[in-house]
């Protein structure tokens, strides 16, 4: 678990909680914006290491995420071959849908391409 303090006072948190099946899961908590997205991304990179090819990102406890947060997720997604988004809020779900990212950041348990 690692806290990341942003300059703007926004606080983000990333926590690794693997599934019983062994699939690595990282949970994002709090608010992610420009002030902390970069350091949070670096922490996330450390947590998952280089050997991870399948990653679930749990957004169930996320309060807020702006385009910097999306950019951070996209960078992780580009590094790991398969990323799935778990428990996105309706807002995040819609943002992913609106911005044409459903293929890049697929929501867990859904057919890819669905908007």
């Amino acid at each position, binding site marked *: 678990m690692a806290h990341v303090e942003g300059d703007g006072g926004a606080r983000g948190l990333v926590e690794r909680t693997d599934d019983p099946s062994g699939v690595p899961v990282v949970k994002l908590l709090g608010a992610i914006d*420009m002030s902390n997205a*970069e350091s949070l991304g670096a922490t996330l990179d450390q947590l998952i290491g280089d050997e991870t090819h399948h990653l679930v990102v749990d957004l169930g406890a996320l*309060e*807020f995420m702006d*385009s*910097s947060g*999306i*950019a951070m997720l*996209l*960078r992780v997604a*580009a*590094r790991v071959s398969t990323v799935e988004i778990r428990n996105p809020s*309706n*807002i995040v779900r*819609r*943002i992913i849908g*609106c*911005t*044409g*990212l459903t*293929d*890049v950041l697929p929501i867990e348990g859904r057919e890819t391409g669905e*908007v």
Partner: protein
Amino acid sequence: MRRSVLSRAAIYVFAVAVAVTLTLSLMARALHDSNETRLLRQQVSAAAAVVSAAIPNIQTPLSSGAVLAEATNSDRSAFTKLMTPLAAGRPFVSASIWPAHARDPRPLVVVGSAPELAGRPQAERANFLAQTTGKKVVSVLDLLGRSPRRLGYAFAAGPTARFVVYAEAALPENRRAAVDSNSAFADLDYAMYLGSTANVDHLLAASAAKPQLTGRTAEDSVPFGDATLHLVMTPRRELGGDLLVRLPWLIGGVGTAIGLAAALMTERLVRRRAHAEELAQQNARLFSEQRSVAQTLQHSLLPEERPEFPGLDLAVRYVPGVDGVDIGGDWYDVIGVGDGKVIIVVGDVSGRGLRAATAMASLRYAIRAYVAQGDPPETVLLKLTKLINVVRDGHFATVLCGLVDVAEHSVLFANAGHPNPLLIDGANAEFVLTKVGPPVGVEAATSYAAVSVKVPASGTLLAYTDGLFERRGESPDVGLARLRGAAIGYDTLDQLLDGMLRALTPDGCDDDTAILAVKWRT
């Protein structure tokens, strides 16, 4: 900025501290004074009591002598037997029997040395002896002014007595008699006078060479036979101990030190605050400078305010975010391609700052280059994906690119993750459903599909970035519905854009915002 050696607040604090200290000091001093005076009065009363207690030592032997003289008709041998031990120095140097009412009285019997009284004038002797018969106490004769210094005492046994017994006591040499160092009055200097005032002619005894006592003194008078003894005392040192004497100075010293420390601390706080204010002013100036630099740079990266194309009305707005310190990554562009066709672009690079603005500028000019090569919107977007990469640059960009065919009243839209444009026609406003592909910079290998939209003659197309409708903690659907509702009821494009900005972002935009509106000229 005002600079002085000490701030007014520090001086004030010090002044208050000194005033408080002074008051406390004076109070301590007053307390000490009253305490000393009280102690001194107690001592004088005690000393006077001791002196009073000495009277019977004189009166008792004299009254015994007087009774004996009356009973024995002034028998010499009986009187001598009684008085010899008493007239050898202490308490008396001389004792004698005198007739009470003689015209020229002479001593009838003398024990010890010759009485001084015998050398007195006839009238003084006669008067002195006569007046003793009416008294129940010892009569005191003041022989102080003469030499040798003696004090005379006389007593007669009742008003009808025939004889007066008279004794004289010698006073100390130089009238000095030191107080025993272990006595209760060892801390005091005293002067004892015969009479009720401190008349130096009648000084009986004093402990100091200079009988006039100065400084803090206390006096008391006690009856001494038919006369009065006056006692004056002064403390040789502080009766209440040294602490009370030092207390005012102690309070003064400590109080001044505390006051000085408080003043210095105040001074430090004042200076620190002044420093903080200075910093805040500096920050505010830097902030406004950076803000104006950011805005200047941003506007220089965007095309001219009002692009002109035949057959089209165009209007654009760029509004920086509220904090406005960083350059944003939002942009719009209008590019003529000839042949009655125009490319309109609205885009948004994620993040802010110089890096986002640089990415925005490179995308904007790349689009101009691709358009100049004759690429259609979907190809333009595809080529852009090679320019920007979220893994490498940390940014991605959403871009809406439309090819406007003025004559055909149509627009061919390609969309890389951007909010759909709004088509406003009279009282209706509908989002144009484009084929939304991923933002540029996300995946290198992707493709975009263009969608052609027919625009009615009275229709207005509105393209914008998410700053116009997005609010924290709110679904984009809610914001888009609000935007759609705010787009109705304007005549000109300028009214439309200004009106929507006012309605949707009444407190200014959180994020920066770019808007582009296009309408066919009728």
